[in-house]
Each structure stands twice: as structure tokens, then as C-alpha cells.
């Protein structure tokens, strides 16, 4: 209870700080919209914002699903094949250093216009944290457990399935939390690479039309999406890892 109150207090504080910063003399209100203006913006074109939010949410969810799948496959196969890890890991890392604008045309070339390139961009940005965390999780399993599995004549896949994967779920979920959070900005980039609708495009247009309140309203929606997805992953973890917090072997 007391904690709830403190929480609310802190949040209120943050909003107040925002309002304060926005009302500073030195800050042009076209540079930073105040919470009040944002609320007004929701009033003015809530419909437009929500329509576009829906478009972006779809991109985010599909892209995220794609990236988690890709991350799982990448991590597991690299874990099982040392040579593959040595060779592929640098490439995966490199893939994170390529600016989206350079890739966008290639993705368009590969997937045409439409949702394809956007999903590809979201997936590209999101799969990496999943891969890194899961791989690290798989590698940090108690060595004695692995030896026990060997002594029981477990096959490589049995060990993976019965011990390594369950043991690394906490790592996996940390990675998914990060992925869920950045997926939103991924969709924004995707839309900047060419889209007819979506929050990302709305924000970009808003910027170019100096509709600062609308820009920040869009960002608030994007943030809400990120927070929601993050919460969703945490919920999923509580369901998938009930033994967490209990004593470990």
C-alpha cells in the first residue's frame, strides 16, 4: 500500500518534471510538447492516433514473434555447433551495425512494399538480444548437471531439452524483455523506410509539420505499447518459470 503510494508519487513527479521542462522559457514549445498539450492532441485526433497505433501494433507483434523464433533457432543451433557459433556470431553482431536506411532498399527488393520489409526490420533489431541471452543462458548451466545427464546416457538433444533449455529460461526471458521493448522503435524505423500508415510515419510527418503535440502523443502511444509488451513478457515468464525464486539445486 505505502509502496503503491510512493510509486504514484514518483510517477506524478516525473510528469511534473516534464511539464516543468516544457514550460521553460528557453524551450520552444515546438521543440518539446507539454503533457497538457499531449492530452489535448489526444482529444483533437485520438481517432487518427489509434488507427495508426493499430497498424504499428500489428507490425510489432508479428515482427516480435518472428524475432523470438529466429533468436531461438540461432542460439540453439550455435550452442549445438561450436564451429557455427564461431562463424555466425560475428555475422550476427555485424548485422546489428548496419543502419536501417542501408538495408531498407534491400528489404524492399526482397519483400516488395507492404508489411514485409517492416517485419524484417523489427525482427532484425529484436532477435539479437534474444540470441545473446539465450546463448549465454545455455552456456551457464551447472556443469555437474550436464555430467549427470551424460552419466544417464542422455543424448545431446535430451540434455538440451530436459536441462539446458529449462535452466536458461530466465536468460531467455530477459532477452525477450529487451526485444519486446525495442520492437516498437523497430517498427518506427520500418515505417520510416516507407509506409502509408502507422505511428512511426505519423510521428515523422508530425515532426515535418511541426505538429509537436501530435508527435509526443504518438510517442506516448509507442511507449505504452513498449510497456505493455514488456509486462506481457514478464507475465509469460511467471507462468513459464514457476520455480523461479524457489531454492535452486
Amino acid at each position: 500500500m505505502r509502496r503503491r503510494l510512493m510509486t504514484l508519487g514518483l510517477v506524478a513527479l516525473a510528469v511534473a518534471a516534464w511539464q516543468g521542462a516544457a514550460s521553460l522559457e528557453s524551450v520552444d514549445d515546438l521543440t518539446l510538447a507539454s503533457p497538457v498539450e499531449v492530452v489535448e492532441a489526444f482529444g483533437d485526433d485520438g481517432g487518427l492516433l489509434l488507427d495508426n497505433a493499430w497498424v504499428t501494433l500489428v507490425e510489432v507483434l508479428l515482427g516480435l514473434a518472428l524475432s523470438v523464433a529466429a533468436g531461438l533457432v540461432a542460439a540453439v543451433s550455435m550452442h549445438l555447433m561450436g564451429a557455427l557459433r564461431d562463424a555466425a556470431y560475428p555475422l550476427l553482431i555485424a548485422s546489428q551495425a548496419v543502419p536501417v536506411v542501408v538495408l531498407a532498399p534491400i528489404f524492399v527488393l526482397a519483400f516488395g512494399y507492404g508489411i514485409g520489409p517492416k517485419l524484417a526490420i523489427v525482427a532484425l533489431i529484436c532477435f539479437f538480444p534474444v540470441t545473446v541471452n539465450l546463448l549465454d543462458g545455455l552456456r551457464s548451466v551447472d556443469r555437474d548437471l550436464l555430467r549427470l545427464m551424460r552419466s544417464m546416457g542422455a543424448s545431446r538433444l535430451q540434455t538440451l531439452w530436459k536441462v539446458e533449455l529449462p535452466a536458461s529460461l530466465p536468460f531467455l526471458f530477459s532477452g525477450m524483455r529487451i526485444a519486446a521493448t525495442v520492437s516498437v522503435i523497430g517498427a518506427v524505423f520500418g515505417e520510416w523506410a516507407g509506409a502509408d500508415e502507422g505511428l512511426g510515419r505519423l510521428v515523422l510527418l508530425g515532426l515535418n509539420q511541426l505538429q509537436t503535440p501530435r508527435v509526443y502523443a504518438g510517442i506516448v502511444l509507442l511507449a505504452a505499447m513498449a510497456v505493455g509488451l514488456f509486462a506481457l513478457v514478464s507475465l509469460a515468464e511467471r507462468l513459464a518459470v514457476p520455480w523461479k525464486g524457489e531454492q535452486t539445486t
Partner: protein
Amino acid sequence: GEKEEPLGSAAPRPFELLLDYFPNADHAGIYAAQAKGRFEAVGLDVRIRQPSDPAAPIKQVAAGRVDLAISYEPEVLRARDEGLDVVAVGALVRVPLTSIISLPEAGISSPADLEGKTVGTAGIDYQSAYLQTILADAGVDPEGVTERNVGFSLSPALLTRKVDAVLGAFWNYEGTELRLRKRDPRIIRMEEAGVPPYNELVLVANKGSLEQKGDEIRRFIGALAAGTKDLERDPAEAIRGLLDANRDLDRKLQRAVVKTTLPFFLPPKGKPFGWQDPDEWEEFATWARENGIIKRLPTPGEAYTNELLPGEGL
């Protein structure tokens, strides 16, 4: 004549148009024509695409991946200089839109006032060259003027008062924008400050494919001319094409921009729609050559053609 020649019942041919940027008032004529079905009428199923970045259109058209792209005259010159076989087949906006914009407190009403000021640019080489030309023309010592690359955020840089002026924003767009926002912008246009006039926005085609695409492009421009006529006749009505297709545009702003830009969509007296002045092209190319934007001066008529304009080259 932009009189639409009926094409019988043949199904419209797909025709990919890649814009220079996200849809805005500069494209009002295109959307007007699209909305009125003028492209179908000439047997074209026009698909309007947006680029992933401002440099994309010219590459895509050079790669023959789109039928027509909207780009900038300097970019066309550069592309040819880099050996891309592209050609400007018509002017969408026949004057420079790039401008120097400042806020009143900076006290910049003429190029001479740039003395000792900081100017934000997008870091594009030919725009920096504009600045140098302008300073030279106004007899301002370049040393005394700081150019600062502010990336994409020209207006924000201005509004954060971190620069005194920005070069690269369009007078018809950002200029109008700031005016509507009561920021009372001061605007210096390139051609008024010593930069040779050029066509800011041009329709670019792949020269190699003109043989078989020429007719389609001609028809496209014809329909676009008609759309632009509609815009002139009844702007309030014709601009709906743009606004309805892009709900997220600021209607007030776009209307105002169309109003200020309309004269420059239209050709000079007695010239067909999309007319590009050969002398201006040569002059600008020369300037570009002198300022090291391009290494080789294109032969006259190499980078542009008016042949495909309504009533021309038939």
C-alpha cells in the same frame, strides 16, 4: 494538349512513381490527377511509392525498378556525373525551393546580415556550395560565417536557437509552416541571392528505357498536367486528392503551401507543363562544375529533355 486521348478498353498498365519524400503539397497535382482518375484515363495504373531516404529515388529509377521518380536537379546532375543513365523529363516545381530561413531575433533580412552568424545545414555538399556562392555574392567573408551540420532537423535547430539561420529548408514548406506557427520567419531564396536558378523538383526517368517507356511517361505527364490544371482551377477541391489519400497531413498547412507554390507548378507563359529552361540547366550545370559538385560538364541536353512534355517532340 492535355486533352485525354481515350485508350479503348485496354487494362491500365502498372506505373510505379517514387516520390522524393513523404507525400506533401508539392505532390498535390499528382494526387489530384490520381483522385480524378486521370491516370487510368490514359491507361496508367499509377502506384505512388515513398522512398526509404531522399537519395533512394534516383537510384531506384536508375536501376529501372520504378518507371518515374521525383528528385532534385542537382541530384540528377550528380547521378549523371556518377554514370547513372537518368534524365529529367519534366519540372514538377520549376524554381528553387531551398532557402535560408531565420527567425526575426537573428536579424537576417539579406545575405549581408549573415556576417558572423551560424548557419545550420543538412550536410549536403551542394547546399554548402550554395552558401559559399551566396556569401561571395554578398561580399561576406566566409571565415566569419560558421556552417553547422544539424542533420535532418533544420527547423528544430532554428527553434532551439542553436543556429541563427538554416539553409536547406524549403521556403514554400518550412517557411509557410513557421509563418502559420507565428514564428515570423525571414526567408532568403537561392535565386535571389546569387545561386543560378534551377528546378527544385524534377521528374526523372531511366534514359535507356525511354524507347519503350517514353509513351507511357508522356501520357503520365499529360495526365499530371491536367491534374495540375484542376489544382489551379479549384485548389480547395483538387487538393482533397492529397489530403484524403494521406489523412495524417496537416490540412491547413498543405493548403497554404499549395497556394504559395501553385505558380511554380505551372509552366511559364506559352510553355508546356513541366517545361525546363535549357539555359537555366546549362547555367546551373556550369555552376555545379565550378563548385566541384560534378567533375564533368554534361553536354547540352544530356541531363534533361522537354521532348516528353504535352505537345512537345511529337
